[in-house]
């Protein structure tokens, strides 16, 4: 059987398949459907310093081969996560990776400092790409100086693996990727959702309470794939790829484009067992193609 382990700096994943932040809750929500211990990792719902109620309903709109969301980082705050949620999931045999958010650099620092102290947490994902909050979020991720500033500040207070999640809502994603790499990111994950909107022609109103939201699902896959490929060639740190992955073939395409690991997002809503099916599919692909280690796939795209 092929070796499915992948290493992202000091973070060891038993396989390259993880679940994307905001689409998999805290994992527990899926425990009736799959064995969570099979996953490479779980990127849990976005966390902030204080409780956030998020945006008003409606927060969701189905679109062609995808959906818009405008959840707005609803969560009970970092302290609640550490005291009440993490103890329930910490014994899972998979990497639990918190997704860190803030409206100011200070907030990012404070949340990260708290997580740095938590035993068992070996990595964080710095979300500088949420399109659904008024302050912070994507504002950090769409300009090079601010992306560098927040990564640099968080790097100083975090000793473990630091993954920075990039926004696709930029002219040149490789510039931001290089910037955060220079500021000390151990890996980059991409992409977050695309800023988008939906209108109800009958009522002449926007579908979302926030007018705009973030597009995810297979509709974004070809763009996400292109960005992963570009970033893979622009930086030396590992790339974690996501955006519209619905099955093992999609996942393998991301790895061929340069991803070391992948995240499954919106697909979890349609099939709560899809993440495990993707692991099985990757295993089969490796077997059929005589691949001894899954890492061989990373960047193995053949352009003749």
């Amino acid at each position, binding site marked *: 059987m092929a070796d499915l382990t992948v290493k992202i700096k000091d973070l060891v994943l038993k396989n390259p398949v993880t679940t994307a932040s905001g689409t998999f*809750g805290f994992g527990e929500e899926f425990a009736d459907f799959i064995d969570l211990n099979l996953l490479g990792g779980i990127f849990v*719902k976005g966390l902030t310093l204080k409780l956030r*109620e*998020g945006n008003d309903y409606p927060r969701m709109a189905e679109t062609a081969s995808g959906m818009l*969301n405008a959840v707005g980082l609803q969560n009970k705050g970092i302290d609640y996560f550490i005291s009440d949620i993490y103890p329930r999931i910490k014994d899972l045999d998979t990497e639990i990776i918190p997704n860190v958010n803030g409206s100011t650099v200070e907030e990012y620092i404070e949340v990260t400092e708290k997580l740095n102290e938590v035993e068992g947490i070996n990595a964080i994902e710095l979300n500088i790409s949420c399109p659904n909050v008024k302050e912070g979020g994507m504002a950090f991720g769409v300009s090079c100086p601010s992306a560098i500033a927040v990564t640099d500040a968080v790097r100083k207070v975090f000793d473990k693996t630091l993954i920075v999640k990039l926004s696709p809502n930029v002219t040149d994603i490789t510039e931001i990727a290089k910037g955060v790499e220079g500021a000390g990111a151990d890996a980059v994950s991409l992409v977050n959702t695309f800023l988008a909107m939906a209108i109800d022609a009958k009522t002449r109103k926007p579908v979302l309470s926030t007018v705009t939201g973030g597009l995810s699902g297979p509709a974004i896959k070809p763009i996400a794939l292109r960005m992963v490929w570009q970033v893979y060639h622009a930086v030396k740190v590992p790339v974690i790829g996501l955006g519209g992955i619905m099955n093992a073939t999609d996942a393998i395409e991301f790895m061929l484009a340069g991803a070391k690991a992948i995240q499954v997002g919106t697909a979890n809503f*349609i099939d*709560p067992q899809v993440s495990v099916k993707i692991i099985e599919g990757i295993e089969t692909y490796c077997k059929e193609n005589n691949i001894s280690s899954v890492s061989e796939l990373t960047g193995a795209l053949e352009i003749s």
Partner: protein
Amino acid sequence: MKKIQDFKVKEYRWLNETGYLLTLYSDQTIEPVSPGNFAEIKVPDAPDVFLRRPISIFDVDYENRLLTFYIKVVGKGTKKMGELNPGTPINIMYPLGNSFTVNGEKNVLIIGGGSGIAPFILLGRELQKKNISTTFLFGARSKNEIVLTEEFDKYGRVLATTEDGSMGEKGLVTQHPVFSDISGFDKIYICGPDPMMKAVAKIAGEHQVDCEVSLENMMACGIGACLCCVTKTTSGNKCVCTDGPVFNSKELAWQI
């Protein structure tokens, strides 16, 4: 326990131009279902329907491994689900959400509008088992939209209001004479369009009658993972798919 299970289309029963009962069968046993629970249905052969569709469980037959849904056509998914051939595979996540509560009531009123009648066969059956006197009140625009009264008859008295007066009392449900003695009920259960639920919840509140409403917010995951389906409550945003769909009307932060 929540389960993802393959079913097949058994049969349809069309009730009017837009409403139908869809019965599915499975080779596997059926999970225990409570009144108010819903399912997330993957609409087959419909590439333009991306997400699952949340639909209340109308009836369940454990012995013959059947699940029945009452569906009203409002868009592409609900239309497609009415056009499948018998034997078509259909994948379902169920039972989801909480259920209506029954705690020693003596006399209850159940109000349904539109597809909101769906959860009330299971509830009516449970109330009957507990010897609770049940009155059903259904509201619609016109007579042809009031369906399945013969089914509900088995579990209690059935009343109706129609906006055009073609059946029962003319007007909205809240104009029905049962409301003149609303304090005679110790509980109201309601599922229907928001304005109807709000109007009933307001009257229930004024007369201190306990009132449970079942909400139909749009959903993506149905299992509490995406936080898309929230409603405002007195203790912050709650997920309709896991904390609901049934809420006590006092809990909801409704501007009424």
